[in-house]
């Protein structure tokens, strides 16, 4: 309880102590955190690799945009609908994913991510094609004494808070244990009566809902959506954030979001190609030496300092610590 309370306090205070251009970035950290959380649940806890969550973000973002632009819907109505739409797509993709394992799922979702921008560009009459859709800025109602940017910041983090709380609720108890069991020992899990089809599809759907909300937040914060916002790079960014932050913990989503928002800003000072090199090398290094990511690694250090065996979400092993445990991919 102490940890999250501390985080909430920091987030509440931050806009007043940092320069305003950083507040702008922090809004995006909130959006990324929600999206990455989806991957933490789907990939970290349930073992299904998705390289295509940018597609769900696209659906979420464009749903809000189209509802606002073409039909005049206010954002507070559009965002839940965006979540619903992404959730439905998540069910569909999840059902397809049932037939694909490991590397094949990665392949199919990778292709989904690449196909998304051209899909969006093709249906120009709905999506506005290349040029995208411009939206109105989110302005605070008169009775809230905040500037527009601070208002968007608090709205974003409030939504993130709801997303994290809801997710914690969703994965507590039986559901979360079933997800992890399906990840670690699917055959044993099934023989214990866990229906893999239901749980895996639900995991996909929930992670898609989160990604949809993240995409909607992107749209509202930027007041603009375009096909190239939701390219392959976005899907990869989400996965990079999850892995670097800590793929199986909620904290990892937060840490990862901060990394993927701020690291490129710093690395771009060197060169346009630098963020890619840093990301790529970091991914490889983390995978080889610190598979739990930063949050996982810190958790382990803290637990060792308290001289207790760490009770991380990875529990019996998980996909990433199998680097140490041998789980051969071929006979």
């Amino acid at each position: 309880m102490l940890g999250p309370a501390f985080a909430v306090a920091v987030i509440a205070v931050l806009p007043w102590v940092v320069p305003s251009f950083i507040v702008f970035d922090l809004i995006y950290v909130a959006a990324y955190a929600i999206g990455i959380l989806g991957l933490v649940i789907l990939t970290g806890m349930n073992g299904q690799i998705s390289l295509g969550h940018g597609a769900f973000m696209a659906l979420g973002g464009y749903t809000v945009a189209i509802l606002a632009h073409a039909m005049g819907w206010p954002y507070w109505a559009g965002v839940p609908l965006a979540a619903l739409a992404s959730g439905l797509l998540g069910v569909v993709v999840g059902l397809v994913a049932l037939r694909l394992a490991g590397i094949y799922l990665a392949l199919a979702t990778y292709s989904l991510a690449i196909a998304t921008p051209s899909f969006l560009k093709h249906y120009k009459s709905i999506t506005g094609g290349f040029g995208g859709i411009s939206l109105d800025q989110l302005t605070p109602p008169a009775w809230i004494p905040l500037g527009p940017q601070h208002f968007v910041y608090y709205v974003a983090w409030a939504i993130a808070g709801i997303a994290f709380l809801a997710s914690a609720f969703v994965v507590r108890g039986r559901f979360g244990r079933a997800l992890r069991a399906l990840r670690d020992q699917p055959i044993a899990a099934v023989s214990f009566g866990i229906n893999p089809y239901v749980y895996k599809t639900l995991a996909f759907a929930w992670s898609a809902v989160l990604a949809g909300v993240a995409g909607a937040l992107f749209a509202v914060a930027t007041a603009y959506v375009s096909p190239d916002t939701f390219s392959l790079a976005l899907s990869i960014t989400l996965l990079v954030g999850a892995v670097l932050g800590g793929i199986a913990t909620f904290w990892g989503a937060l840490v990862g979001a901060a990394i993927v928002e701020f690291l490129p800003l710093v690395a771009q000072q060197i060169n346009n190609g630098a963020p890619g090199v840093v990301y790529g090398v970091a991914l490889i290094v983390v995978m080889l030496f610190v598979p739990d990511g930063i949050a996982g690694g810190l958790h382990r250090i803290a637990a060792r300092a308290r001289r207790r065996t760490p009770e991380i979400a990875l529990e019996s092993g998980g996909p990433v610590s199998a680097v140490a445990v041998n789980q051969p991919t071929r006979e």
Partner: protein
Amino acid sequence: MHDLAQQIVSGLATGSIFASLALALVLIYRSMGVINFAQGEMAMFTTYVAWQLVQIGMPMWAAFLLTVIVAFVGGVALERIVIRPVERASALSVVIVTLGLFIALNGLAGWIWGFVVKPFPTPFPTTPLQIGGAGFSAQDVGVIVVSLATLALMSLFFQKTKLGLAMRAAALYPEQSRVLGIRVGWMLALGWGLAAVVGAISGIMIAPVVLLDPNMMQTEIVYAFAAAVLGGIESPVGAVVGGLILGVAINLLGTYVEAIGNELRLAAALAIIVLVLIVRPAGLFGRVAVQRV
């Protein structure tokens, strides 16, 4: 009629590129059961190397030859340094490592050569070839010939040489091969080297058409995935056949079917991947695997 023939030849040309890349994917999949997400970026990077060599004045074919050698060494090095630690780890670990390679190579190419699109010299004459009254692009025909020659050489290598046999053995029966004295680890590295060579050749063939930029392979590799999946991810023959079929199909669909046009060709490739994986995961030529529980 001539138009159709031209479209088919064009389709075969892109198809043979898909076939080459798909073959590289199959090569690595057969040796270690993983799909190398970085295959396209490795090809892209070596193509930039070729470009650089031509820029400093090397004659084209010498530059290409040197590039192929560099690609081989690079592929071997990458496998030994980056992939070896995760060779036996879970699918997720390997996906992430190859993805890391993807991102790093993309960034590195951008860093060194910038993100501005560059033209790439073509080794083939630009005047069209007249065959039976129809004009065919020499580029298309040249690509088909080079790609098929590469594939034929690969096939000969694996089927007829002792080293090729050793590599096949190491891929199928690693433990037994070790007993026989085959250095399985190095066979895997060789596999990566050869895959890199095939990728380099594909990149050089395709760059004159799609123009050189760090992101040039990202869409092509999707088609290569589709080709490999269609043909059967374990089958080299399947990769070639799948690639050619896919190239022609996508080209014809894109040209003659209004609803698909240019932008949805990728979506069509995606649909093929998903459909094949659902209906017949082994593809056209793969073996159907059954696992006892």
